[in-house]
Structures are given as C-alpha cells and as structure tokens.
C-alpha cells in the first residue's frame, strides 16, 4: 500500500516536471514570438506606404502631409546628423573613461565613484535631460549661435546632438572598461619590460588588443543615439523642411525619425500619412537591430577568444 502511494506521488511529480519544462520552453518561445510580432506589425501597418511610395520614399526630399507628399530624407538626414555628431563628441570621453577605469585606476573608491556616476548618466530619464536642456542649454546655444552668425533658434540639430552625446557615453564606456580590464597582463608586462612607458603600453598594446571590442561599444552607443526619442523631440525644433547650407541645417531646427513619429503619429489622420510614419519606425527598427546585433556579435567573438 505504502509503496503505491509513493509511486503515485512520484508520478504526479513527474507530471509537474513535464509541465514545468514546457512552461519554460513556452516562455522562451514567447520572446521569439514577440519579436516576430513586432516585425510583422510594422511591415503590415506600413504596407500602404511601401506600396504607394516605393523605395523612392527614402530619399524623397519633401514631407508635406497636407498635400499628401511624403519623403523620408529630412528625417534620415536629421537622424544621421544628430547621431553621428553625438557619437563623435562622445568618443574621446568614452575612450578616456574606459582607459582610466580599465587601466589607470581599476580599483578603489575613486574608481567606484566614477563608475557609479557614469552609470547614473544612463539612468536619468531622457525626458529630464530634454526638459533641463530646453531651459538651460538652449539659451546658451542661442548666444553661441548669435556669435557665429547663424539664425539663433537655440533648439536644433546641434543642441540635440550635445545632449545626446552625454546620454550615450555610458554605453561605450561600460563595455570599454571591462574589455580593457581583460587585456592579459603578460602582454602589458612584456611591453613594460622592453622599456615602454605607460602611454606606449596603452597605445601599442592595450588599444590594438581591444580595438574591435571598443568599436562594438561605439556601435551600441550609436544604436542608442539613433532610437533616442524624448530628449531629441523636445530639443530638435521639429521642422520637416530642410534647406540651406550645411551650417544652416546643422544649427537650425530639424527632425529625426523618432521625433517625427513622436510628434505626428497622434495627428496622422489618413492611412498613407500614418503608414508613412510607421515605415519610418520600420526603418529605425531594422537599423538599430542590425547595429546592435553586429555589436553583440563582435563582443561575443571577442570575449570567447
């Protein structure tokens, strides 16, 4: 009798075991389904625009919903301009942080303090950066623009890039720090033994060794910059018409893919307008996914070796 009861118990346990394994698998599958769902939704909803406007949509220069003319060029330009400007500004800083925390000062309270502070930069919500910059940075930029003789909008591509630059530093810096810490010390010691100075070790051993990893960090930062919405929406000035010299575009108001979606999605009142906006979202999705996956791939390959 006793034995049978035990057997029953273990049967029910085995049943639970199978249920649990299934449940885990379902959860794993849900993540895949989510991503497929996102992709399908974006494609289906932007289909009217893909069909009606074709590939030429991407370099159409005019965005005028009132007369039903849609071209994504102003937003592609705005996105690329803000992201790459921010990236160029941020690179020296993220490299410096990586080198400082990875090589010069990897341990101790000062290093911890700096590391936590840098992490905090990523934690502050982007809308707060946007709000702050709108009231503090914009007047400063306006003065600067008066000095260099461009129209003093204050808001615009340049202002958005400045704030974006600060916001994306932590992503490249965190990765860079841990990669530089992983450089094998025999390599460094060898160089020191040959009489190299610290600078020479960093330049000729550490940086070449971590080059691909640091590049991956920059890609991750770029991925953030491309998709960043709120701070940019508040600061970029929201103009879909671009014209004039590079200087005028750079300091003048513009729009990015993310900011035009944030601004116009709610007021898009006919199908083509709405789906043209979603197509921007689709492009944004593809670009950020590709950039992120390349970045991750480089990191995995790097850390496995």
């Amino acid at each position: 009798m006793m034995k049978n009861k035990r057997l029953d118990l273990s049967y029910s346990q085995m049943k639970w075991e199978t249920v649990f394994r299934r449940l885990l698998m379902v959860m794993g599958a849900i993540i895949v389904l989510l991503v497929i769902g996102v992709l399908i939704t974006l494609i289906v909803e932007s289909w009217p625009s893909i069909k009606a406007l074709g590939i030429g949509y991407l370099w159409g220069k005019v965005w005028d919903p009132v007369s039903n003319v849609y071209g994504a060029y102003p937003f592609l330009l705005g996105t690329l301009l803000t992201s790459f400007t921010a990236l160029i500004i941020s690179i020296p800083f993220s490299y410096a942080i990586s080198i400082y925390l990875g090589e010069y000062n990897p341990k101790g309270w000062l290093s911890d303090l700096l590391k936590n502070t840098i992490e905090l930069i990523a934690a502050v919500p982007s809308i707060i950066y946007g709000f702050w910059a709108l009231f503090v940075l914009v007047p400063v930029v306006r003065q600067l623009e008066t000095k260099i003789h461009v129209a003093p909008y204050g808001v615009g591509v340049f202002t958005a890039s400045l704030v974006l630059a600060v916001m994306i530093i932590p992503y490249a810096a965190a990765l860079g720090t841990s990669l530089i810490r992983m450089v094998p010390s025999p390599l460094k010691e060898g160089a020191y033994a040959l009489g190299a100075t610290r600078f020479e070790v960093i330049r000729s051993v550490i940086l070449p060794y971590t080059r691909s990893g640091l590049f991956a960090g920059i890609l991750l930062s770029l991925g953030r910059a491309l998709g960043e919405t709120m701070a940019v929406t508040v600061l970029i000035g929201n103009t879909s018409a671009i014209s004039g010299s590079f200087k005028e575009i750079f300091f003048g108001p513009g729009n990015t893919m993310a900011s035009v979606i944030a601004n116009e999605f709610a007021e898009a009142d006919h199908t083509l307008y709405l789906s043209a906006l979603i197509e921007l979202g689709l492009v944004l999705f593809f670009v950020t996914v590709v950039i992120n996956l390349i970045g991750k791939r480089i990191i995995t390959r790097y850390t496995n070796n």
Partner: protein
Amino acid sequence: MDARIGVRNTKSILFKSLIIFLAFVVTLPLIIVLLYIIKQGVMQVNWHFLTHVPAPEGEKGGGIANALVGSILIVGMSSIVAIPVGILAGIYLSENPGSKLAYYSGLCVDILQGVPSIVMGIVVYFWIVKPFGFSAISGSIALAIMMLPIVIRSTEQTLLLLPPSLKEAALSLGVPYHRVILKVIVPCGFAGILSGIILSIARIIGETAPLLFTALGSNYLTTNVTGAMESLPHLIFTYATSPYDDQHDLAWGASFILLMFVLILNIVTKLITRKWKIQL
C-alpha cells in the same frame, strides 16, 4: 638618449592627465542637471503638490497626484507581467544553453533590448489601443516588453554563475526538476534576479515614448486601468513644452520626484549587488 626618455615620460604624463581630465569632465553635465532639477523641483514639493491634480491652464497651484498614482499603477502592472515571464525565460535560457530555441530566444532578447522605445509604442498601439482604445493597460504592456530583456538577462547571468554542484546535489537526492529550480536554484540567485528587476523598474519608470500613444495622459486622478492615465514622464513632457510658467513649475516638481525614484532604485540595486557581490 636621456632627452628622449624625458620626452617619452613627459608624453606619458601628459596623456595620463588628459585621460583623467576627460574622464572626470563627463560627470559635470550630470552634476549640473541633478543640481538644477533639485533646485527647481524641491521648492515645488509639498503635501498639496503630492495630493492634488494639476490646476487648469494658467492657474496657480495644483499638484501631480494623477501622474504619481498613474506611474505607480502602470509600472506595477508592467512588473506583474514582466517579472514572472522574464524570470522563467531567463531560467530557460540558462538551463538550455545548447538548444536551438534558446539560441533564437537569446537573439530575440538582444533585439528587444535594442528596439527604440518609440517603436514599441507604435506596435502596442496597433496591438491594443486600436482595438480597445487608449488605456493604462496598453501602456503597461509596452513598458513590460521593455522590462523583459533586462530581467531575462540578469536572471540568466545570475543562474549561469551558480555552481552546477548545487543542482547536481539536489537532483541526486531525487528532488524533481521543477522543485530543484524553484527551491534551490532561484533562491540561490535571488539577489541577482532581484537587482535585475529593480534595475528594470528604474529603467522603465522614466520612459515616455511608449506611453505617448498608449496610456496617453489625463488630467484626472483615476485608478481605472482601462482608460487613459497620466504618468510622471508624460506629464513632464506635456508641461515642459507648454507656454505656462505654472505648468513648468509642476513639471520641475514632477522631474524631481521622478529623479528621486530613479536614484533610489539605482542605489538599492547597487547596495544589493555590493552586499551579495554580484556582477551584473
């Protein structure tokens, strides 16, 4: 010869100074922003501010009770969805490192992590808002999807670090698989999982973009999760871009509260990871 060594040493010292300068300059913008928000916001915050809804446009006074309640409700509902799913998916990834589904699942976690928040907002708009109308629930779902990758990755990383002997010992005693996971493995990695959860909450509590077309925002204090609802970041966005000074004041106060939430959540995560010596 001596002169060359001198030059090389000077170069090395100059480089070090430059690196230190650049590394520490980065903290300046953060400090300036924090101090400014605290200075502008702390004057706004009082009991009245926390318990009243915003005054009509152009009028003085009012508070942000609607956004505060909304944010807590929306983030709470996101957590209810994202935490169990995230933990279980994380367990799946750490338990089945070789399987094909786990590979694609891991890939999709990476993809989800990189999806711009505004895109998530559009997608959830079509999934939930279009058929059922603007609601706090739709906002929660958008935020839950943004939480998932962080919870999954932290769970996975924590569990992978646990010694396999734990699991083997439990299994050899005849403990069924699900009990091994739930009673041995998860409690051992509890601190790591918990810090991942807190970090993910800190990340989404300030997200504005996914809420723009989902929870929308509302001027009323409401707990009806099937209707539009205000949230702190959305209130800051609307009032920051409004022309009224009184609304700016409300937005500064709301920014201060939001910032405090984020700071506290981050500090708690830091304390947990330090106490249990976890690497996230």
